[in-house]
């Protein structure tokens, strides 16, 4: 893999990428809705050869004491060995926890969902939104694919019926989730001094630093996550944010 990293790095001297893309070019993205009919909302995102499924389940539970009139969201991600020879069975490792938390932050901090509208009875009953993300094939940039799948699944979600404050699963109403913002995440990586969008798996293994940027429809940032072993200069960060704002505009059109 070391050889591959230096090959990828040397190609970038001429601004060339291993798959012939431009530095800011995304791979082909496909969004399919309603892929799991047992979920209240679901979506499958194919980003190049990376495939992610997200499903939304709604349940009724008690609100947190500090926000008695607000529902809540719980995001989790499974990096199952079905998706990659590098993933192993067992409880979520740090990579899948980071993936889920960065998706969670992008949705939560942009206030994408109007949690007040998820209140059924103040202090007693609220809707809890579970977003579960499963990777089916990892060819890099699971983060952007996961976020897009989560947002698409949330947009695809319809409330189930309620009877005596209990959920009647399998019977959906026409009511959609109160989505007020549409954040999208874009991940940029730095390899050999160049900034690239949408890294594939080979590029991910060669990166020195990465930055995930969540951008709202208005162009404001609502979450950031820096990763990778090396540091970023302020110019790098500036450039990455600009590229993320541009990239998220394109991705937003797909959901």
């Amino acid at each position, binding site marked *: 893999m070391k050889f591959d990293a230096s090959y990828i790095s040397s190609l970038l001297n001429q601004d060339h990428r291993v798959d012939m893309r431009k530095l800011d070019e995304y791979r082909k993205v496909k969004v399919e809705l309603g*892929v*799991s*009919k*047992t*979920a*209240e909302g*679901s979506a499958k995102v194919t980003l190049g*050869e990376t*495939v992610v*499924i997200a*499903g*939304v*389940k709604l*349940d009724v539970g008690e609100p947190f004491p500090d926000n008695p009139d607000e529902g809540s969201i719980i995001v*989790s991600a*499974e990096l*199952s*060995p*079905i*998706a*990659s*020879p590098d993933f192993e*069975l067992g*409880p*979520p490792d740090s990579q899948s926890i980071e993936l889920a938390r960065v998706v969670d932050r992008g949705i939560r901090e942009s206030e994408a969902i109007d949690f007040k509208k998820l209140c059924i009875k103040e202090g007693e009953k609220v809707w809890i939104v*579970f977003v*579960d993300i*499963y990777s*089916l*094939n*990892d*060819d890099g940039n699971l983060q952007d694919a996961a976020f897009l799948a989560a947002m698409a699944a949330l947009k695809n979600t319809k409330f189930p019926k309620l009877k005596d404050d209990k959920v009647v*699963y*399998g019977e959906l109403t026409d009511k959609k989730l109160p989505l007020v913002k549409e954040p999208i995440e874009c991940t940029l990586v730095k390899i050999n001094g160049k900034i690239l969008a949408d890294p594939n798996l080979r590029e991910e293994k060669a990166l020195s630093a990465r930055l995930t940027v969540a951008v709202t429809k208005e162009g404001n940032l609502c979450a950031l996550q820096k990763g990778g072993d090396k540091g970023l200069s302020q110019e790098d960060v500036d450039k990455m944010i600009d590229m993320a704002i541009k990239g998220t505009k394109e991705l937003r059109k797909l959901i």
Partner: protein
Amino acid sequence: MVYSKRFDGRKFDELREIEAKVGVIKSADGSAMFRMGKTIAIAAVRGPRNLHPRFMQNPEKGILRCNYDLMSFSVTERKRPGPSRRSQEVSLVTEKALLPALNLDEFPNAVVDVFIQITQADAGTRCAGINAASLALADAGIIMSDLVCAVALGILHGDKVIVDINKEEEDYKDGMADTPIAIMPHSGKITLLQMDGEASKEEIKQALEKAKEACKKIREVQVKALKEKYGGMKNEV
């Protein structure tokens, strides 16, 4: 009360609509999707590859390891991600259902891993999983004596035997004995047989007969899916 007409209008020995596709996961050595009505299973094979921990290695032949998992949103009420007692048992019986069809003699000390994910469940998930896994193993080029085909039957004691029950039938109020069966259609060998409920000896015999017929149809769909990917090849699958 006699169950005289199926909820979805099928004949009592009629399978749900079935669909199979080979090669659905690019990074895997073999993979397949298998859909039975509203139940969808995806399987990926990784290996033969090195087996760790080493004490599990068999110096005479490769071993098979299966993992079955329901996606948390594949069922009506959200299931917590991760393994459960149920999923571990299903993984085990899936492994035993597939093993008789495999020849792993050429891979001493190695493991063939099979990962099954259910994306949407409407009963018969272990059977759909076995059907997908068997296709994925063939896609991975593992030597097999036959494909393994599986179907869940329902036995209404004192009434009738029903092929490929869905969730609504599984929950039938008068008690439906759920009977998943896997067969290697060529030899007729049964590699999975479970039942919970009440049934007579005659009814089990009848269930096995019906399963045999249904599995032949499942095999046809599996072979067709393999031919769609490997159609250019001359030999019959």
